[in-house]
């Protein structure tokens, strides 16, 4: 999916909120769930859709890092270029989005 095409893409508020959360640094499923307050049954399927549409991409954490912290490895999500453009469009459509999950605040946590 190209960036031009994505600039036309309209996301639901839920999908936009998840995109905003990923951009704000909440990069794995449970942390997105906690941040947005959405249930797991909404967050994970929405992330699958976003990944399918190439707005986010996933990557497994290195096993050594997980072993060091004595926990299973996490699957991290990251915005793609297309996802960034779509998020900008969504922010214009949903002006309250940034207030719900402010990036500066989140990154400072």
């Amino acid at each position, binding site marked *: 999916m190209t960036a031009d095409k994505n600039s036309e893409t309209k996301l639901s508020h839920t999908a936009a909120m998840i995109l905003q959360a990923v951009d704000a640094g909440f990069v794995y*499923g449970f942390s997105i769930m906690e941040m947005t307050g959405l249930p797991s049954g909404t967050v994970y399927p929405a992330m699958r859709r976003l990944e399918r549409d190439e707005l986010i991409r996933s990557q497994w954490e290195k096993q050594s890092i997980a072993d060091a912290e004595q926990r299973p490895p*996490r699957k991290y999500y990251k915005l793609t270029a297309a996802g960034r453009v779509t998020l900008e469009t969504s922010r214009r459509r949903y002006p309250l989005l940034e207030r719900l999950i402010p990036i500066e605040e989140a990154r400072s946590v």
Partner: protein
Amino acid sequence: MKPPNEFAAHIIDLGLLRGASMLVPRGQRAEWWREWYGELWQARSEYAYSGEFSWSAERAIAGFCLGAFQDALYLWRQERNLGRRGKTPLTLKFGSAWQCLLLMAALLGASFTVARLLPGVRAERSLWRNGVRSGLVLIEDVNNEDSPRTISSGQYRAWKDRKQEFFDGFAFYRVTREQVNWRPVEDGQRESAGWGVGRASSNFFSLLGLPVQFKGTGAGVDAAMPSVILSESLWKREFGADPHVAGRVVRVGLRWATIAGVASEGPWGLPGKVDAWLLEPDSQMVPASAGYVVAHLSASGRSRMGAAQIQITSYAPHRSPDDLLGISLGKAMPRQWDVFWFAVLLAFLALPAISSVSLGDLSVSVHKISWPRRLCRWGFLGAKIVLLLPIAYFVSLDLAYGFIGFNSTDALYLQMVAAFFICMFGMQWVLSDQRQRCPVCLRRVDHPVRVGQLSRTFLAWNGTELMCMGGHTLLHVPSLPTSWFSSQRWMFLDSSWEFLFAGPVRE
């Protein structure tokens, strides 16, 4: 080391995840499991961080795991839709309309299956298939003063032995009160009781077309003994509705006989109160006994018998002619199908009394719905009605014959009442469902919102607004019908509303 309760809860959570993973396509399952396993660890460390067992924490974790099913279902649907790419799935094209029809079809299938399995319905079906009882005639001797008028066995033999043009089958029976022993010989409490016994020709049941239920296998039964067919009421009263009653030996008067099965009383109201039928050949008939004759009309007899009664004169050598009267027994009981259609007619007549038959006002809008859409809308309504009628038929049969034996007027009454209510309330549902379906996509409108205040009914509009999730329409339903807003109205949304609605795929 985890406390035992927490350990058990963790096992249940893992079981939930494992169950959900079964829905995930095989190729993605390992990665899916790895991700959810890691996320579960995260959830547990977040919710149950204190190290002590807490029900609220476990509930939250279980709720988290249940979400895995939605995720797995999404992946399963995605995989399924891959094979259908290029085609628009029916659920997307018609929204929940397709699901509604599928649900009704499933209900129809279930009620049909139950109806096929019920012995009462099966017996009724075989009864009507047989077709014998439509041409049955009860023969009476006009000169007899008894009520009901009997016929002597001599008259019967003389008439039967003559060449017949209008009849192709005869059976004679007489009803006597006899002492019957039915308890086993070894039973110390062996006792007798008085039964109304119908001594009938051996072809009696085949002539009537009455199926005999719970027939024995024939093993261990003395073929030389005459057969006894129990009436359904006696079978229930004296034998506790024992399905293995066939083959038992009873003593009827002075004769031993074998129980061959159970039959209902039949719909004709034949004269005489009979508890059991003793079948014996005409050769063993007691001479000069009085009884009743049932005859079956041949094809030419049916064409001649236009009225409910027919005069018959029997000529026999060496005796004066007998004047007989044939009374038709065929129309004694209506068919299930006739009863059902009568109930449907009543239900449709009663419908306006309980529900509005209007489908809502489309004319106030400037928006015109295309003809194919209109056709779909009306087709959907028609399909629902077409499905409702057989559902009502089979469910009413299930209710009527699930509790009451076949060939009973009670069953017919119950069927009629059940069919009436199912049709009436079913049609009410069909119409109210149709009123709440978007005229464009046939989805049910949702998310009701109260607008206005009841106290301002005459100053401003108040009622409920519902929205089509496809973004096509808004439905306004007045809370109090007024002269300027008497029924619900549709408002069609133009493209300027699109930003509020995500597409069906991108939610």
